[in-house]
């Protein structure tokens, strides 16, 4: 009768719970999957909303007036140096490639956010998909009940349309958790409320509604709306159907379990950092482990027009433990080789320090980082001049960066998707030149 039937069954949950502990079972599964060469890859995007001062993180200018107060530190990769507030990541530098030649020419938050997240500037009527949707479409696995694109704590105000599936359609819409909660340093007055924030809202049935009643309601809904759907075919109806089916799959107890961070050891959770971004990274690992191909976690607060150095130090206090633990944890589970991590914001910040000890928007010369699966780590590719104002070697455009990410993920970036304006559009513009030096 109904394809929804099975999904509401409480028996399944009980069966699962009584036979084997979920985490143990999944751990084994994940380890098996991790070592399987055919395993499809996943991508975790660490999105630094506001535009991070990469000159204080990945490409320091010690001794120059633009350099600011931070020191450089050695990393585990000989010759590669990071900013002093990233010591834990420095220990993992062998897995990371810093792209120091980013040069992107768009200094407005909204337009730059759109550019970095879709690979293009807004162009008239074309609805470009976010990179998460593009990757989700290519790497979506059959039999996974979680949606293929999950966005954690996004800050969408800069460019709403840079977070959606665009012309790829609603089945690649992100599942958003902690929407607009903006993982910021010190948010919530230091109290960690991430357990609540990272829950998918309304995942459980409304009080008093039984499983069989929920089934009945869904089949009643489908029967009653059939006439409307048949006589008015289109995206609205398709998307509605897809969303309800996905919602029902997500409600399955074993699927919903992915979002229950209490499953994790307290010690590991501490290492990620007890804050929304840290726990968001942990959630990203749980999702990747369960076959989600694209997860993004946003860390907001990088728009440091004033008091840049205090702000960046605080942000590093969140970023460094979260990301380094994420890589270590993925590695422990055999998942690092199949998970590519991308770190970027919408632009860098001015080398020149302004009167408020801040740095302003600067797209001309900045850094992004790729790490983990498919990446040849332990190096910096590209070079800026001594003042940090110009790229001197391997200038890297947004299409170059995204094509590099596709390369690491094993996606043909020249593949075409049909767009909403009736012409095919490539995943990344064909003029892109992937940074092959950074690919394993």
């Amino acid at each position, binding site marked *: 009768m109904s394809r929804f039937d099975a999904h509401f069954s409480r028996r399944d949950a009980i069966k699962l719970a009584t036979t084997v502990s979920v985490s143990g079972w999944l751990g084994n599964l994940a380890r098996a999957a991790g070592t399987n060469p055919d395993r499809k890859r996943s991508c975790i995007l660490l999105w630094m909303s506001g535009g991070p001062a990469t000159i204080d993180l990945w490409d320091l200018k010690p001794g120059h007036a633009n350099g600011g107060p931070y020191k450089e530190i050695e990393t585990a990769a000989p010759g590669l140096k990071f900013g002093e507030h990233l010591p834990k990541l420095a220990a993992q530098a062998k897995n990371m490639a810093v792209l120091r030649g980013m040069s992107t020419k768009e200094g407005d938050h909204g337009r730059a956010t759109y550019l970095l997240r879709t690979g293009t500037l807004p162009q008239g009527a074309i609805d470009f998909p976010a990179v998460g949707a593009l990757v989700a479409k290519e790497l979506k696995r059959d039999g996974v009940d979680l949606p293929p694109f999950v966005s954690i704590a996004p800050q969408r105000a800069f460019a709403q349309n840079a977070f959606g599936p665009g012309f790829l359609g609603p089945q690649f*819409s992100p599942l958003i958790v902690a929407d607009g909660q903006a993982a910021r340093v010190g948010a919530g007055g230091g109290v960690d409320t991430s357990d609540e924030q990272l829950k998918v*809202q309304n995942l459980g049935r409304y009080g008093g509604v039984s499983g069989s009643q929920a089934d009945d309601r869904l089949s009643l809904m489908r029967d009653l709306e059939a*006439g409307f759907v048949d006589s008015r075919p*289109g*995206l609205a109806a398709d998307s509605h159907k897809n969303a309800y089916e996905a919602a029902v799959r*997500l409600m399955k107890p074993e699927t919903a379990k992915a979002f229950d961070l209490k499953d994790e050891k307290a010690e590991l959770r501490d290492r990620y950092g007890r804050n929304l971004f840290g726990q968001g990274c942990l959630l990203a690992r749980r999702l990747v482990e369960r076959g989600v191909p694209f997860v993004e976690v946003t860390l907001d607060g990088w728009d440091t027009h004033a008091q840049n150095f205090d702000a960046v130090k605080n942000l590093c206090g969140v970023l460094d433990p979260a990301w380094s633990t994420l890589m270590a944890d993925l590695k422990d589970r055999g998942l690092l080789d199949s998970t590519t991590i991308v770190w970027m914001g919408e632009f860098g910040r001015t080398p020149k320090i302004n009167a408020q000890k801040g740095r302003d928007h600067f797209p001309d010369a900045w850094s992004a980082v790729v790490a983990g699966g498919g990446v040849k780590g332990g190096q910096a590719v590209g070079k800026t001049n001594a003042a940090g104002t110009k790229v001197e070697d391997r200038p890297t455009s947004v299409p170059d960066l995204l094509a590099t990410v596709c390369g690491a993920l094993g996606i043909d970036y020249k593949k075409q998707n049909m767009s909403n304006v009736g012409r095919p559009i490539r995943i990344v513009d064909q003029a892109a030149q992937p940074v092959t030096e950074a690919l394993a």
Partner: protein
Amino acid sequence: MRWFAALVLTAVSTAAFAGQPRDAIALASAIDRFVSQRHAADKVKPAPRSDDATFFRRIHLALAGHTATPSEVRAFLEDTAPDKRVKAVEKLLNSAAYATHMTTTWRGWLLPEAVANAEVATTVPAFEAWLRNRVQANQPFDKLVQELIAFPLDGRATTMRTPTGEDDTTTPIGFYTAKEGKPENLAAATSRLFLGVQLECAQCHNHPFAKWSREQFWGLAAFYGGVTRQDGALRELPNRREMSIPNTDRAVPATFLDDKEPAWQFKKSPRVTLAEWVVAKDNPFFAKAVVNRLWGLLFGVGIVDPVDDFNEKNLPSHPELLDALATAFIESGFDTKFIVRAICLSETYQRASTITDPLQRDPRLFAAFPVQGLTPEQLFDSLSVVVGMPLEGPGGNYLQANGSPKRQFLETFNRMGKPTETQTTIIQALTLMNGGLVGEATTAQASRTLSAIVELPGLSANDRIEAIYLTVLNRKPTDAELKRTLKHVEGGKTSRYDDVLWAILNSIEFRTNH
């Protein structure tokens, strides 16, 4: 020759429109004529006229911002007057709900920042009060725009404190707060909203495909060049009429997009001069941009679409129609209500949304009414009507209250994509399936509507189901629907009516205007 020369209004063979209801019918016929010409050329057979119930729900959502009550629907269905649709449109246009809905709608366009920016949200009540007064009085739209663009900035606080220190409860200052008092943001908004041109891409470089240069962008921004925001107050330096282009050593004088010579007025803000140019009858952009936006609001897709992106690569689907509407708008004295009335009375607007010919699926042909996703406000208010919850009064106060149910709902149901390509997210599905609002609506103990329908004595099962349909979908159930729902409620268990209500509230039909 510049491309906008082609935009200059061409003579149109429609009669003069003076803004009276009679003329609205004449304009409605003109609309139908231009739309039909395209159907004939494209060999599209248009969909038939919508039935009364569909039309009534449609105009309620479009003009009042929410669905109708069952008694309003019944009265309309029982009315046998041949002009009942005209009367229903008129009644709605003169309702308080129309003023509120149009105020919310324009505020959403003018201050989109209010949803995400708490400071801007604080300016919304005063902004909406200012706007609502003008919408309610149906003030000519050119005057409203002029007032907005030339609004005196005399040092009052961004949070609408007057110079004497009192709170100003009726002021459009929020527009300037939302644009951070920055000339470039103000210029970009002015051109998008009132000229239909996305000029901001020319901020950093020449426009990629339209012929807008950086000089033109900064030339427009220069009209706002004296606006400054210091210590939370907005001021204007008098006689500042040029701006330097960032990261260059060039400065540009305030210049109109059509290169007309600005006629500066002694001791007056350049914004006064800009405002006069924007709304001038011979401005090739203004009237078209506004009527196209209103058309887009009613059909979910503009004659130029996106509605604020007029450029030579994005031409109107019906150029003569756009001209006719713009001419009528000017001749009516910039009467937005007149344009809305004429559109609603056209046969084009009254068509069914059911697809009877595959070619009707192109929404830009207007051969069938385009199915549109409800805005979050429409959906929330319609749910409130269904549940019997009082509607939020005007003013947009809910935007400030963090965690207010309406605000939360707006965030969750923020429409993705175009209205005609509306998409449901998983979170939205979960919210309607399992969330408190629908949860309470479908629990007899908590829902006034439901308990009335279920407990009222003397009703047959048919009556109860019909009442649910009229309440939620503003129509009677079809025979097939009645059969299916009767099967479900068979045996008289009252909780089974909860399920019917739940199923209809969750259906795609409830979530769209169609």
